């Protein structure tokens, strides 16, 4: 990160990229399989992430069946239930959301939105995908090894994660940790690309303050991920040492089945610190791209410039920085010093300020906008509501005294599903409806899309709203069967059965979405290059879907920010970023 002094001769990169610099595929294999084109890699990332995400979705159905109708399904025993929750959580957080937002949307949108021909290190970018795929294969293979996948919970807390009482102690945990290590290596390769492309390959005129917020979100999240994932890497390597070499990084002296174990002197809390030093930024690694994308969706579909662009950028940066000093709010019940609890509760509440600024700005963007209730817009609105909801329960849980009784109850499950499950998925779905025309040249079916939205949105509320109530009753999370206990009234069981029915219905709606994706690919209405009449560069490509190298002979030149919608006096209600100013006289407005 070195500043470059201004020099008129070096400041403007050449508009034409010499032919030799751009990698050219020569065969079907290098074009579609071992491709170095960021757009192909993006689709590979997205399909792989969605495939493994579907596995996690099915796991959630199995869990819900067990919770809703305990004892009915004899094929789900307690061990399997633990394995299901572990794999569901790990897949959804890391292998689906992180990979989809950064590897999928990042790869597709960054080069197009900043006006580059491709990522700066295409070969490393390709390698990133294949290492990610390997990580996913290793993860999925744990379903077929003796003992099955690990059932340690997605947080993999030692010492239980590697003790014999936990399912998957033989192979599951070893493969899980190896898969995480692979994922981080693969991600680092991709992440270097995303960051350096934004820094170095922006086209002429694309200043940082003219970047669409989508790029800001993905850019900041990638920097955070590059710095935070090493913590998970270190934790995984150390736990792998404990499991395979018998070291005692995290393992205290233990007696198991009457036998003194060979471990001694390790610190389980150390793992929790390392894990959450990654784990909390991870929440924002998923949320910041969602924030960015939703800003663009709202602005485009409300035909209005984003309210408070500067504040939005500053808030993204502030959230990114703050998210590194809140990690121990996941550890209030770990027995740490109360002063730490006070410190981390304070930082946690402070982070609500930039987040609230963003929410206000989205709402104020909508205010008196020309709101088109398209499917992407519906999902964006669904996101705002869900995110506010999940964020408010976050304020509850951020306070130590409120958190302690609610810890490890369904309240926590409801909170994080709202705020980092449903909310980012809303954005993912909205973004797919929004950018599918650019990727395929065809529109997704609108009626099916609206059906998909309403079932998903209302369903998510019917699932997770009652769950808060279960948590307040004290229903614990991660229990295979709560059985007959005095503090859980019979109505809680009825509620659980209701949640299960809704969850299966929402799951069905996702199948409709998958059908829509495939059906529209062949039968969808042709979209043209810019169906949403949007301003950002990816909609201004000469071809749709964008060809190899993205742009024609010359790179686009950017003259304005990304949000010139409904400009007074303009001919159309949007002005693309690469459209030159009508006359120089207009420049007089600049300060």
């Amino acid at each position, binding site marked *: 990160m070195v500043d470059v002094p201004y020099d008129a001769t070096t400041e403007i*990169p050449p508009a034409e990229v010499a032919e030799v610099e751009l990698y050219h595929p020569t065969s079907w294999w290098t074009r579609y399989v071992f491709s170095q084109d960021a757009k192909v890699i993006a689709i590979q990332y997205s399909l792989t992430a969605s495939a493994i995400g579907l596995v996690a979705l099915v796991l959630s159905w199995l869990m819900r069946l067990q919770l809703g109708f305990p004892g009915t399904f004899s094929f789900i025993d307690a061990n399997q239930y633990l394995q299901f929750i572990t794999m569901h959580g790990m897949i959804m957080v890391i292998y689906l959301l992180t990979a989809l937002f950064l590897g999928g949307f990042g790869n597709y949108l960054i080069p197009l939105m900043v006006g580059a021909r491709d990522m700066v290190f295409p070969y490393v970018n390709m390698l990133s995908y294949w290492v990610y795929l390997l990580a996913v294969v290793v993860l999925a293979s744990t379903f077929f090894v003796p003992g099955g996948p690990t059932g340690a919970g997605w947080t993999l807390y030692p010492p239980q994660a590697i003790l014999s009482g936990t399912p998957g102690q033989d192979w599951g945990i070893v493969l899980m940790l190896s898969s995480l290590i692979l994922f981080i290596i693969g991600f680092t390769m991709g992440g*270097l690309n995303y960051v350096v492309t934004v820094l170095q390959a922006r086209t002429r005129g694309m200043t940082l303050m003219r970047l669409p917020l989508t790029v800001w979100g993905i850019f900041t999240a990638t920097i955070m991920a590059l710095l935070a994932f090493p913590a998970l890497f270190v934790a995984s390597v150390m736990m792998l040492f404990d499991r395979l070499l018998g*070291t005692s*990084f995290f393992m205290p002296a233990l007696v198991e089945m009457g036998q003194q174990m060979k471990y001694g*002197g390790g610190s389980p809390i150390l793992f929790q610190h390392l894990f959450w030093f990654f784990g909390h930024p991870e929440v924002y690694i998923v949320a910041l791209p969602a924030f960015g994308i939703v800003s663009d969706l709202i602005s485009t579909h409300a035909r209005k410039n984003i309210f408070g662009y500067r504040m939005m950028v500053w808030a993204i940066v502030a959230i990114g920085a703050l998210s590194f000093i809140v990690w121990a709010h996941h550890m209030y019940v770990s027995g740490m010093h109360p002063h730490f609890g006070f410190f981390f509760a304070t930082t946690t509440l402070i982070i609500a300020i930039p987040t609230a600024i963003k929410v206000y700005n989205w709402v104020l963007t909508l205010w008196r906008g020309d709101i088109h209730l398209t499917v992407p817009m519906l999902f964006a609105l669904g996101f705002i509501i869900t995110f506010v909801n999940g964020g408010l329960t976050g304020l509850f849980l951020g306070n130590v005294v409120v958190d302690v009784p609610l810890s490890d109850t369904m309240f926590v499950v409801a909170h994080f599903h709202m705020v980092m499950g449903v909310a980012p998925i809303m954005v993912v779905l909205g973004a797919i409806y929004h950018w599918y025309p650019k990727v395929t040249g065809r529109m997704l079916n609108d009626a099916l899309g609206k059906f998909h939205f309403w079932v998903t949105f209302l369903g998510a509320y019917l699932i997770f709203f009652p769950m808060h109530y279960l948590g307040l009753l004290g229903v614990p999370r991660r229990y295979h069967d709560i059985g007959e206990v005095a503090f859980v009234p019979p109505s809680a069981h009825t509620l659980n059965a209701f949640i299960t029915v809704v969850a299966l219905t929402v799951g069905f709606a996702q199948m409709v979405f998958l059908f829509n994706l495939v059906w529209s690919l062949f039968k969808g209405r042709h979209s043209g290059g810019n169906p949403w009449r949007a301003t950002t560069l990816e909609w201004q490509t000469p071809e749709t879907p964008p060809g190899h190298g993205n742009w024609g002979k010359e790179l686009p030149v950017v*003259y304005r920010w990304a949000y010139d919608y409904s400009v007074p006096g303009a001919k159309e209600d949007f002005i693309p970023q690469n459209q030159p100013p009508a006359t120089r006289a207009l420049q007089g407005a600049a300060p």
Partner: protein
Amino acid sequence: MSAIILFMAVIAVIVGWWLSQQRLTAKPWLEEGPISDFPGTGAMTLPAAKIGLGVFLAVAGSLFALFISAYSMRMNMVDWRAMPVPSLLWFNTGVLVLSSVALQWAHVAARRDDMDGVIIGLLAGGLSAVVFLVGQLLAWQQLRVSGYFVASNPANSFFYLITAAHGLHLMGGLLALGRTTAKVWRGAKMVQVRLSVELCAIYWHFLLLVWLVLLGLLTGWTDDFVDICRQLLK
């Protein structure tokens, strides 16, 4: 976790300083026009590989800062028993310094268009890095012979883990160095290798710096320093 927090603070200062040069207070909705109206806000003009290396060093730095954090957290527990550090490490350290110096030599030679100097620098640098790695393995061997196994004590576990992590990073560097040397060997022109040589030198200096910090930590030299810091914080 103070080491990693400190590291993050340094990163935050660098990022903050860089952001402060980027006109983040601009009002882009008022600023229509070509970039020449807004000097210094375009894309970085440094080569992508150099920026990429810079970002990678931040990632690797974060990794080592986390190892150090974990090590110092464990060290502060009451039952900590330090491990004797084999004196071979001092020799290895000297070799690694030589390796770094040799690559700096190559870098300077590359600037002066002195191809022979580049070849000598690269070979000397690579060779001494290999000697360093062999020396590290010998140090492990010595420890094993005297009964300090990886799992027998937390201090041992950390020693093996941290030296292994550092060694692996150096081996990754050797791959890049090998490719550069091969390019020179095949008669590449100076313009084609100048950047690679420079990047190798930067990476080597980084690994030397990391090693010196780790050595200070493993030998306990930094303990006094940490104590002073702790006193100051109180």
